[in-house]
């Protein structure tokens, strides 16, 4: 993964200086706190996603970084320079909006060269650069069209080319793919990531689409209610969400309510679930939730498995094309249910259908435990 030495260094030792440093940034609109004491470091060449539901403050944070909306308090540093009070025109970034914000009365070429013309470089240099950029985004030869003559995906590429034209030090993307259809979105997702890798440009993307964040980002910043919930690689975020909120927001998750029996053991209904408790924060008698992702519910090769093995019945099956989502009755007098994702192969091999009784296991390393008063547990 980490092909660039610079990025590797960022993970292992303290790098000399973060590319962008956000320190205790707070933004208020009247009484509403849009950003609540947010601190974050972003390294050179990184692709960072701000992920969260609408109103979580992700766009506000992006606009504060751009200087389009100023923070109420806190500081922002870019390459060590305090840009907290610098107007956007004096900052170093390119930006792409959800609406693309292409100038409708200017041709593609003049849109892309918009920031270049102002730099008083020669006409030839401008034309060359425009051509280079249009080729880069796969739109060579479309320079004399008006934006309205392009498809949504093409407009998006023009917006990207325009943002990159002036070779900014940082690329900001505000929900750049949200206005596109699913297919185009998937393709562009890939292309943009490729482009970002090629140019090695520090990029921040705001999105509410977890799939987008998981596939594109080097690091994801999960936000809610103006605060950062978790920062980590896509795998970390998915596999080890630090809070029920993150667990629930990304992917599907079962929340099983139970009680700590003794260290490392939680009782849910009649099930005794062995869990890992590295921090030792759970004491006997604590009310907790045990979380397991539907695809982690194991069925095959349970022969020698002793821990966390239970007999359950399939209450319902939803066919979802490439897999099936089964609702399992926990049984043993408890009316709790959990969902499990079974591959089509598994369905066939085990002849699973409504009412089938089967043994399932919860692999210990797939389980996360939270206190039941933690924020974000779905009702």
């Amino acid at each position: 993964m980490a092909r660039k030495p610079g990025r590797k260094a960022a993970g292992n030792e303290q790098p000399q200086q973060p590319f962008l440093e956000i320190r205790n940034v707070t933004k208020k609109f009247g009484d509403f706190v849009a950003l609540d004491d947010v601190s974050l470091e972003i390294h050179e060449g990184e692709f960072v996603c701000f992920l969260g539901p609408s109103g979580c403050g992700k766009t506000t944070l992006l606009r504060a970084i751009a200087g389009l909306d100023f923070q109420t308090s806190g500081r922002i540093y870019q390459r060590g320079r305090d840009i907290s009070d610098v107007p956007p025109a004096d900052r170093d970034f390119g930006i792409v909006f959800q609406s693309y914000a292409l100038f409708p009365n200017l041709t593609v070429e003049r849109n892309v060269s918009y920031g270049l013309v102002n730099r008083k470089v020669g006409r030839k240099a401008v034309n060359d650069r425009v051509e280079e950029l249009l080729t880069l985004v796969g739109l060579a030869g479309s320079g004399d069209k008006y934006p309205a003559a392009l498809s949504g995906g093409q407009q998006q590429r023009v917006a990207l080319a325009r943002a990159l034209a002036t070779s900014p030090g940082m690329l900001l993307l505000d929900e750049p793919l949200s206005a596109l259809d699913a297919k185009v979105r998937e393709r562009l997702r890939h292309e943009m990531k490729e482009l970002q890798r090629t140019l090695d440009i520090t990029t921040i993307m705001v999105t509410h689409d977890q799939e987008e964040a998981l596939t594109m980002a080097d690091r994801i910043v999960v936000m809610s209610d103006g605060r950062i919930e978790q920062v980590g690689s896509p795998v970390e975020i998915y596999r080890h969400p630090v809070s029920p909120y993150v667990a629930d927001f990304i992917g599907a998750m079962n929340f099983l309510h139970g009680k700590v029996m003794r260290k490392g053991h939680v009782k849910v209904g009649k099930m005794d679930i062995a869990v890992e408790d590295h921090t030792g924060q759970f004491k006997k008698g604590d009310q907790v939730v045990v979380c397991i992702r539907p695809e982690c519910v194991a069925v095959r090769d349970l022969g020698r498995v002793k821990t966390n093995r239970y007999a359950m019945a399939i209450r319902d099956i939803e066919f979802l094309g490439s897999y099936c989502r089964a609702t399992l009755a926990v049984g043993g007098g408890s009316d709790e249910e959990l969902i499990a994702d079974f591959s089509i192969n598994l369905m066939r091999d085990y002849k699973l259908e409504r009412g089938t009784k089967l043994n399932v296991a919860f692999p210990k390393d797939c389980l996360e435990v939270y206190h039941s008063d933690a924020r974000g547990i779905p009702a």
Partner: protein
Amino acid sequence: MSAAEISVTSEGGSSRWAKLRHVGREAWIMLGGIAAILVALVAFLVLPLYALFKKSVEDDKGNYVGLVNFQEYYESPGLLQSITNSLTIAVLTMVIACFLAFLYAYGLTRTCMPFKKTFRAIATIPILAPSLLPAISLIYLFGNQGLIKGLLLGESIYGPIGIMIAMVFYIFPHVMMIMVTALSTTDARLYEAAEALGTRPSRVFFTVTLPGAIYGIVSAAVVAFTLTITDFGVPKVIGGQYNVLATDIYKQVVGQQNFSMGAVVGIVLLIPALFSFVIDRHVQKKQVALLSARAVPYHPKPHKARDMAFLLFCLAMTVFLVGILGTAAFGSFAKFWPYDLSLSLVHYDFDKVDPNGWSSFFNSLKMASMTAVIGVVVIFLGAYFVEKGQGFARLRGFFHMLAMMPMAVPGLVLGLAYVFFFSVPENPLSFLYSTMAILVICTVIHFYTVSHLTMLTALKQIDKEFESVSASLKVPFYKTMFRVHVPICLPAISEVMMYLFVNAMTTVSAVVFLYSADTKLAAITVLNLDDVGDQAEAAAMAMMIVATSLTVRVLHGLLMRALNARHSAWRTR
């Protein structure tokens, strides 16, 4: 009137001055621009109105006397009678005009009668003429020398009847256009649902059509009421002995030089105008929410009897509208009404009857051109700052509020306020008094609100991130404004220029107090000529105004066509 409402988020929390840390060079330019227009609005709107209020509580020597003037006004039976008269006329005219305009608009929007476009164009004829014109025409037809005087069955046209008929003509396009908008903003699915449920047409009308249009109807009624009660030209020409508020102001100020009493009447006139302004704004807000983005436009299906009935009605209205205009035209060409009806241009020799004859026409051209050009620049910049400005949210909100004010101020009141404010020699701005500049300024302010809203609507449709993109590319906002916003807004810019020009050509009310011998305007000349009995010359000058307005309107139409052709390149795939 567009229903554009501005919402400016206020940035609380941080102290007001802390924000200035972030102010870059561009923001200072923007702040400077807002401040300049704001100062102008204060100097040319707020302060004159203040002078008017002040005058109403002073005696002729400038001593404060409290509400004595109002008491005096209240105790003078003649003046009080004017209020009753004004209200009677306004309410009756409102009812008649709304009824006719509703039917007309219904015909245009909900039937399949032929010639809809033509009918629509014909209905806007009155906008091109000063309000004096219908009054003059009515005198030609029903006056002492009237051609068809007999139709009135002995009633006199000089008085309430004449005022009302002329008013209906004058306000018809304004009311009709609001009705058309109200009837156009409907959801076809409601009608399909009603039809699917087997609802009788009359029930559909009362349960779907009327409720859907009700805000528009209220809005139209309010506009009709305000225009009628504040118009001065019609009652001046055809009112006879029937006094109304608008003519009272003129008589008090120009006739009797009683400025304090004039100010009192002005404030009395401000009350209904303000009142209807508030109702209108309230109703407009509700209207917007009525139509969801997913509404399906309604397309009427042919219905022979209905379509024929509306065709006949619209034809009758056409006869009325064209007839009034035609009468004035005919009267202006007829040698000696009603005895020698042979055509001649003798009445267009204005210099023979009025020392400022033709020059007043050229003054009008000059004034209207300057109003259109200066007005559109100021109004565009103002709307741009309000809509696209960044930071200074409170200041922009205040600016927008000021920009909405002129709509609530009748022209007569504005003109009078200018007299009180600018005629005082101690005022450093008094050098403007009795110049062309003051006429231009007054007219721009008088018609500011509608232009501001038109511009705002156009700007609102432009992506709000253009400024952000521009800043990220390090292109100053004003360059993007010229390269992007101005070209996109050209249709609205042309629209506003035409609106300002035509209104500047036809307006009488505000400028009647402000013109001097050198800056007399065509519409004022119409008034004066009529006053001294040169009716044919008055009609001729009114026709000159109509012809000019019409020319500008045609030019605007051609420009729009050209713009459309160009803009379509931006739109088509």
